[in-house]
């Protein structure tokens, strides 16, 4: 589904990713862990196509719906319509734009892209409310402007709601557990788990292993100084929990 080869990328001339290679297949969950400043968030932004980050080398091949695409050079909205979803570490507030208008605009953009008809507003409302129930979200949420005055937990739940509504092929969760209390984290993790299928994949980016107790990864990668320094099964996450990162990076 995703094949990253020798990816180099940075911001304002400063190289942050220094040759990352990673293959993700449909049905898999990958965790990317690493200390602060190792390039985890940069990787997520580069995958989503943030305009401030510049890819200086390598490639990101993506395959979904029998289409093979090279992501570098594609606009963020094109990538999203092809099934890439980034759950933001810091979801952005959009004053004046109600959540319901926003969700429908996003959903309809996919419908049009796939050549399908837009969903009837009443049916869409029903569809969204079902997903909201899954995440135990308040009914009034739909009338509120996107993320404005949301608590940290509400913002993160909103990210997963958007994921549920858009039904992506490849979801990248950037520090989705940060700022969440244990109950909210369980709800969010359960939401993600319910969306797992054989034909989609999830990349979980996290500093701590606690989220991985709830979203169990098939592979764990340690990112340090812009490179993946170790890749193993899920037991690696527990080892990091016990021993920290130092033993992995000081050789």
């Amino acid at each position, binding site marked *: 589904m995703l094949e990253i080869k020798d990816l180099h990328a940075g911001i304002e001339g400063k190289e942050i990713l220094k040759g990352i290679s990673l293959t993700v297949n449909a049905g898999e969950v990958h965790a990317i862990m690493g200390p602060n400043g190792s390039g985890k968030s940069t990787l997520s932004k580069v995958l989503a196509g943030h305009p401030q980050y510049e890819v200086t080398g390598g490639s990101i091949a993506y395959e979904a719906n029998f289409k093979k695409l090279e992501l570098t050079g594609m606009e*963020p*909205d094109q*990538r999203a319509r092809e099934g890439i979803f980034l759950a933001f570490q810091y979801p952005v507030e959009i004053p004046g734009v109600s959540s319901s208008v926003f969700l429908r605009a996003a*959903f309809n953009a*996919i419908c049009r892209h796939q050549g399908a008809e837009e969903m009837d507003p009443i049916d869409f409302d029903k569809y969204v409310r079902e997903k909201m129930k899954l995440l135990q979200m308040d009914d009034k949420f739909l009338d509120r402007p996107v993320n404005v005055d949301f608590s940290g937990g509400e913002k993160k739940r909103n990210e997963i709601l958007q994921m549920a509504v858009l039904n992506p092929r490849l979801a990248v969760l950037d520090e989705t557990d940060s700022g969440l209390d244990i109950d909210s984290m369980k709800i969010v993790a359960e939401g993600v788990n319910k969306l797992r299928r054989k034909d989609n994949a999830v990349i979980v980016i996290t500093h701590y292993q606690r989220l991985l107790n709830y979203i169990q990864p098939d592979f764990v990668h340690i990112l340090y100084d812009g490179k993946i320094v170790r890749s193993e099964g899920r037991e690696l996450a527990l080892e990091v929990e016990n021993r920290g990162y130092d033993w992995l990076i000081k050789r």
Partner: protein
Amino acid sequence: MTQQQMPLNIEGLQEYQSKLSGNSNGWLKTFRQKSFDQWSAEPMPTPKDEEWKYTSLADVINRRFQLARRHQLVEDRQFENYRSRADINVVLVNGVLWGELSNLKDLPPGLKISSFNEALGHGSDEIRDTVSKLTPNDSKPFLWMNQALFLDGAFIRVMPEAEIGPLVHIIHVTSGILPDTVVFPRTFISVGESASVDILESHISFEPVSYLSNAVTDIRIAANAMVGFCKTQAEAHQAVHVGTTRIWQEAASYLDSFSFNFGGRLVRNNLSVLIKGEATRTVMNGLYGIDGNQHVDNHTLLDIQHPNCTSYQLYKGLLNGKSRAVFNGKIYVHAQAQKTDAYQLNKHLLLGKEARVDTKPQLEIFADDVKCTHGATIGQLNEEEIFYLQSRCIPRPTAIQLMSKGFIDDIINTIKSDSIRAKLGRLLLKKFPEIKL
């Protein structure tokens, strides 16, 4: 006889003025003459005046103006689209009340509407009392010119305790004029104790003709009354509008005001609210949506002379093209006005790269136990917000539409009257089709 050099060059002024003077009597005659003398003696403001620093009237001063000869609506199709049957419409064409276009019969109990002249003819002391109490604000020459030369006006009276359900819509339409005509719309509103009413004052024109509208509105709000007041200005691209709105607020009254500027080449609004009693609540919101070479200047003054008053002010500007906006928000808190709680914010969204904004909050506080905050922002669309929307499948142009519409909706939604909101929404869509979703 040599003709006196007037601050504004108006053809046939002497003849017009002597006719006006002949038709007035008593108090009005003196009032007009005094205003005329004051106006004659005061030069027109220039950018050297602090209050006119960013707004030049050079083009106005150098023109020769006509007086309106006819007061008849020429373009009526667009006019009909603009007004709605559910409202109580008070229509003035080039400053003169036009009964056939208005519904002045079968008014709800407690609401009285007449022309200014008729009210004065019946010896209404109310207008005289209030007008003499209100002090001129930052555009004295225009106020005096209006007082000296206005032909007629609308007089709206809400009796004490009356609750007026439908929207009172005062429509000042400029129509059927020669190029470079000057008109003097005049409105007077008096809301009695514990009464409530929603009023929209619209200034519109549909013919592409240049003119100067020098509009004055005086509003007196008695104790415990609740007033929603919105002034909308959506005039021809060639028009210049200088508006003076003076509001007098008595104890425990509530004013929810909104100023909407939209059309015209040059617009200057002077809104002043005088707080003349304790525990008042005042909302002064506004929105300007401009493009091309339009210039909109809003000067507001909130003069708080009594304790325990609260005020909230949010002005927003959406600027496209090379348009220019000026905002100057003065809040004056007198020494005795303790426990004042005043909030002021002025926000702009610049869609045009060459658009320009000059914004200046001006708080003068002489009381020591008050809470006053203010702020101003000028910005282009936030790239992080655009990226967020794009990352949710939304193409960039749609993201920009959504955010611009959001910027506007945020403030339009503070207007409580559905009828006003719908009208403003329609106007905005016509001008910024890019916000339609």
